[in-house]
């Protein structure tokens, strides 16, 4: 096998890193060249990733790994290195493609921002971290990049830090994902403790969990898998740690497209896929993944149906689709999960960038104030429509095939989850079509919408480029061919044959969702308040996202605040009190001293006398004592 480009895979993350260093070094006065450097860095990564992909397609590609010993302490040896597998190659291409297009798009979207070079440096740092995460050959290195990615997400959500909402959202994202990160870290520590030779690289993990069943106790395996999954839950916005993702939409829209739709949130899915052998060794862990995924998918989809902020709808949609990926993984379909990750990355990035065009044109995010944009923003409308059809699972667009792969597995494995998946698919089609009709159909409902204009080419061309894989990417894995599955699993890999029923049902459900939405929001046959008139509490519940934020505020935040207050009281009273006591003693002594020194000879005489008496008492008393 040829490894000309593969062995240079370590260069892929280094281009954005170099761009980051340059941008940081030259600072803010570097506007024009800074943007070019950032974009060129991501373009170079994309080209190299593409070359690696072409090299690995077709031939039986061996995994390529290289690295060096990082720490050598006693018996412990920590290596750091990179590993190129077909899975990571696919991720490389996805991340670099979306990253590059977002870099291009940001030229238009962030054009008038003061700190555009800072923005580009953060984007480059993020791209570097994400590529490092993808290439990492062991869990420890992955964890380092995992945290770096989290930091970048924090920085970019809070990019407009003068807005208090952005600051709050950035903090929330960081803290909520941290809960998951703590779980992941515990999982890594447990794994380190349990693995023979303390090996943490993915190859050894695969050997142990797949090759030697029973090497690690069943309960321990489940625990490790669940802890790793907790990390994925935090990063990928799964229930119950999904609350940060909708708030993360406070960041600039290109960031939402890159980080909070296409790449970083997929890191959780990638993590589960990368450590899939651990999960496969424990049925309980697999079930947890599947049920949490399915629940998240339907849960977020229901919330998305009533939201009014264009980006929040897309955010809940992302949460829901990530649940879909987890569902696929939990049911044992690595191919399905990763396939959906890939197609979702394309069409969701596209949808977000299209939404960015709308926001940039209108400076409004509320869909109720939009409408009628299809004649004013033709390209954006078409691209958005393609994205809606793709995510709704209308054949032959990419979303249909990836959803079909997951649903088919679900039907074979667990009928209940299949039904949940179908319901989520219906809701997805419904709310995405609602979004589309509210934004692009009908009459403009605000001044801004009337005056909207199509955006310049830097902001439309990336959409058109993304539309190509969003439409076509489904072709690599269909019920008739199994290219992706074979490629990912290295040869074998049983895949569904037949499955005509699932295809028909899922396409029908998607079409039905769009049709219902059309009746309600475009044609008006069904009144918009049909549900809200009869079940107002349900709508309110959904609008408030099931009051989860409030619940967390009461239970977790208040609880922690109480604990904090208690600790603060201890600190203030006990510790600071002791310190103050020492201080005030010295002050009092000093004050007494100054009072004694009053210049009166008689006072000095009295004190001398007292001292003498004291001395006498001590001497005499000692004699009496002994």
């Amino acid at each position: 096998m040829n490894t000309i480009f593969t062995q240079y895979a370590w260069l892929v993350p280094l281009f954005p890193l170099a761009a980051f260093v340059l941008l940081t070094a030259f600072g803010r006065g570097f506007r024009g060249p800074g943007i070019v450097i950032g974009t060129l860095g991501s373009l170079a990564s994309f080209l190299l990733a593409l070359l690696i992909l072409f090299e690995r397609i077709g031939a039986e590609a061996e995994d390529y790994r290289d690295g060096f010993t990082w720490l050598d302490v006693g018996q412990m040896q920590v290596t750091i290195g990179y590993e190129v597998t077909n899975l990571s190659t696919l991720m490389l291409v996805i991340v670099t493609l979306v990253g590059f297009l977002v870099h291009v798009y940001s030229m238009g979207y962030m054009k008038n921002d003061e700190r555009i070079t800072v923005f580009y440096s953060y984007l480059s740092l993020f791209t570097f971290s994400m590529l490092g995460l993808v290439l990492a050959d062991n869990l420890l290195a992955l964890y380092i990049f995992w945290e770096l990615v989290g930091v970048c997400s924090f920085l970019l959500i809070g990019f407009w830090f003068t807005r208090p909402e952005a600051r709050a959202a950035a903090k929330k994202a960081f803290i909520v994902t941290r809960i998951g990160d703590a779980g992941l870290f515990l999982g890594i520590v447990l794994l380190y403790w349990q693995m023979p030779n303390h090996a943490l690289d993915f190859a050894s993990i695969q050997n142990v969990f797949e090759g030697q069943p029973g090497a690690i106790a069943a309960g321990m395996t489940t625990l490790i898998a669940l802890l790793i999954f907790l990390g994925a839950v935090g990063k990928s916005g799964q229930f119950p740690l999904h609350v940060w993702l909708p708030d993360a939409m406070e960041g600039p829209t290109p960031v939402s497209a890159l980080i909070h739709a296409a790449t970083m949130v997929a890191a959780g899915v990638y993590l589960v896929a990368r450590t899939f052998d651990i999960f496969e060794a424990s049925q309980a862990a697999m079930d947890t993944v599947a049920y949490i995924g399915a629940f998240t998918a339907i849960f977020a989809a229901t919330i998305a149906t009533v939201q009014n902020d264009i980006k929040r709808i897309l955010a809940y949609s992302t949460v829901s689709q990530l649940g879909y990926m987890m569902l696929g993984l939990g049911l044992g379909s690595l191919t399905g999960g990763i396939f959906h990750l890939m197609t979702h990355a394309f069409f969701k990035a596209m949808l977000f960038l299209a939404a960015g065009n709308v926001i940039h044109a209108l400076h409004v995010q509320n869909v109720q104030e939009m409408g009628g944009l299809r004649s004013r923003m033709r390209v954006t409308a078409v691209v958005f429509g393609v994205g809606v059809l793709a995510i709704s699972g209308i054949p032959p667009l990419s979303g249909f095939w990836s959803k079909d792969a997951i649903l088919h597995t679900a039907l074979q494995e667990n009928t209940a989850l299949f039904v949940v998946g179908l319901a989520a698919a219906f809701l997805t089609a419904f709310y995405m079509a609602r979004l589309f009709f509210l934004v692009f159909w009908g009459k403009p409902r605000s001044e801004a919408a009337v005056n909207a204009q199509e955006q310049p080419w830097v902001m439309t061309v990336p959409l058109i480029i993304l539309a190509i894989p969003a439409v076509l990417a489904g072709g690599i894995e269909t019920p008739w061919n199994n290219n992706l599955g074979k490629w990912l699993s290295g040869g074998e890999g049983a895949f569904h044959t037949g499955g005509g029923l699932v295809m028909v049902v899922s396409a029908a459900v998607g079409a039905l969702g769009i049709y219902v939405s059309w009746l309600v929001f475009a044609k008006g046959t069904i009144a918009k308040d049909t549900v809200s008139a009869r079940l107002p509490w349900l709508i309110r519940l959904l609008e408030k996202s099931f009051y989860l934020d409030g619940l967390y505020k009461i239970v977790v935040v208040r609880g922690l605040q109480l604990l904090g207050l208690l600790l603060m009281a201890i600190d203030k009273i006990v510790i600071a009190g002791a310190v103050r006591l020492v201080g005030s003693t010295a002050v009092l002594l000093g004050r007494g001293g100054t009072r004694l020194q009053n210049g009166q000879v008689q006072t000095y005489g009295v004190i001398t006398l007292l001292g003498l008496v004291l001395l006498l008492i001590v001497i005499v008393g000692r004699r009496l004592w002994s």
Partner: protein
Amino acid sequence: MLASYLTMAAILFCIGLYGALTKRNAVIVLLSIELMLNAANLNLVAFSKYGLAPSLKGQIFSLFSITVGAAEAAVGIAVLIALFRARGSVNVDDYDEMRR
């Protein structure tokens, strides 16, 4: 016999000490100091008569001491008059030069 002389001297000394430390008038303080000096002289005389080796040395020494005390009192009075001229007061509370 010695004990009663010593007690007498101790009482005298204490009265002198008390006066020196509490009286506000500088002249009385000076007088109190003389009182303490005399208590010491009394001790000298008592020991020279009833001590372990009685001799006249103690009594002669006390004469010296009285002379020195007189000289000292003269110097003290002189200082006091100078102070009174400078400060316009014989109240010891006003003499707080040592604080400055």
